[in-house]
């Protein structure tokens, strides 16, 4: 049985209203058959301190990444992971997490590379659920294992690699890091590593739109009109643009990827997950410092 969509008026304005659910909706549908909630956090212990009742944990660092190569798990690895979590190919997967859903958006983006048919984000994430004093549980659910099919990852549509970014110079590109990271004026203490990159600055031509501008105070996404005012009126992006987004390792840019692709309906948005930790370390990669794109 298909899990219904959240018909909240705010979502109906977005290009793909079905990609979001509200905390109200989730509280009502927690026990729906065919629905699994997964928490994906920056802090690997946060789930253990209490999570949405019935939610499983999905960790980007230790589960969605290949343990050796800097890449995501392959089709067989993803199938194994989803099966162990009790997530089937026909499961409606609701993702949420800390830090304004950075890692949840990242997990959603990775699920998209595997073309999981129905994956949605909890608007406002963990912070909003807790702010509303909704139920939390420390019980770790044991969901029956599923038989998730092996689907090979398709990186062609939504993922950008370094050589593709190099060929994209001069085309629309958004650097979603903080202004200090963008200009290259990193705070640093002598002898201590910072940001994991040897060089500071940004990819030439990239405009700086910190991810947080798309988020409201309560960690929910801003309304469509507000998002259009930023990305279209101010930055000049158009829905048919070919856009690359990046940050440091691709988690904050997943948030902006979600905004541009799912909320504003841009057809071609790719997340460059190599991001600054690749570009800022690559020999001879062109870099611009300061505020000029």
């Amino acid at each position: 049985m298909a899990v219904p969509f959240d018909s909240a008026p705010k979502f109906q304005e977005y290009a793909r209203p079905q990609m979001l659910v509200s905390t109200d909706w989730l509280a009502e549908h927690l026990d729906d058959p065919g629905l699994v909630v997964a928490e994906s956090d920056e802090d690997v212990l946060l789930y253990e301190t209490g999570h949405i009742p019935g939610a499983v944990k999905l960790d980007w660092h230790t589960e969605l990444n290949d343990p050796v190569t800097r890449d995501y798990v392959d089709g067989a690895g993803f199938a194994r992971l989803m099966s162990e979590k009790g997530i089937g190919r026909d499961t409606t997967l609701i993702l949420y997490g800390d830090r304004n859903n950075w890692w949840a958006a990242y997990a959603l983006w990775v699920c998209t590379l595997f073309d999981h048919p129905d994956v949605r984000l909890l608007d406002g994430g963990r912070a909003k659920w807790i702010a509303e004093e909704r139920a939390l549980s420390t019980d770790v659910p044991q969901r029956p294992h599923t038989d998730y099919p092996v689907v090979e990852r398709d990186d062609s549509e939504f993922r950008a690699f370094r050589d593709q970014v190099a060929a994209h110079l001069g085309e629309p590109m958004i650097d979603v890091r903080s202004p200090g990271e963008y200009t290259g004026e990193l705070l640093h203490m002598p002898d201590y590593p910072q940001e994991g990159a040897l060089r500071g600055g940004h990819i030439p031509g990239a405009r700086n739109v910190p991810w947080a501008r798309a988020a409201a105070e309560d960690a929910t996404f801003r309304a469509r009109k507000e998002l259009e005012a930023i990305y279209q009126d101010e930055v000049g992006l158009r829905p048919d643009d070919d856009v690359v987004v990046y940050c440091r390792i691709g988690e904050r840019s997943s948030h902006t990827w979600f905004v541009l692709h799912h909320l504003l309906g841009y057809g071609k948005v790719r997340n460059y997950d190599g991001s600054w930790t690749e570009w800022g370390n690559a020999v001879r990669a062109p870099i611009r410092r300061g505020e000029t794109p």
Partner: protein
Amino acid sequence: MTTAALNPRLQEIAEDFSSVPAKDRLQLLLEFAEELPPLPAKYADHPDLLEPVPECQSPLFLAVEVDGGDVVHLFFQAPREAPTTRGFAGILHAGLDGLDADEVLATPGEFSSQLGLADLVSPLRLRGLAAMLARIKRQVREQRS
């Protein structure tokens, strides 16, 4: 694998971690997070006295004191919403607070590899623990000189 010598308290912590199954190690880390003592008023009221540790993924601040008897006292501030970072601080507090400066300085920089957390927590997150230790040792050296 060769392991550098740890002081007895850190050694015990490392043994606690390695003696439990992997799935219980995160729970143990959570216990360290919960046991981290709150900041005393002299620091809570003067956050400017604390040193930030930007290598941690979540905000962490620390202060180090070396008293007249060459004994090291450690103070940490980490938000409740960042239990992993708090857990790292808790380990360092439990393992180093109240030791002689020489013992603190002798702590191997890579001691976190003996906790068996790399696969569970990820090397990137563990960098925060190494950074905290490096800053503590630097402050101890500065205050002694």
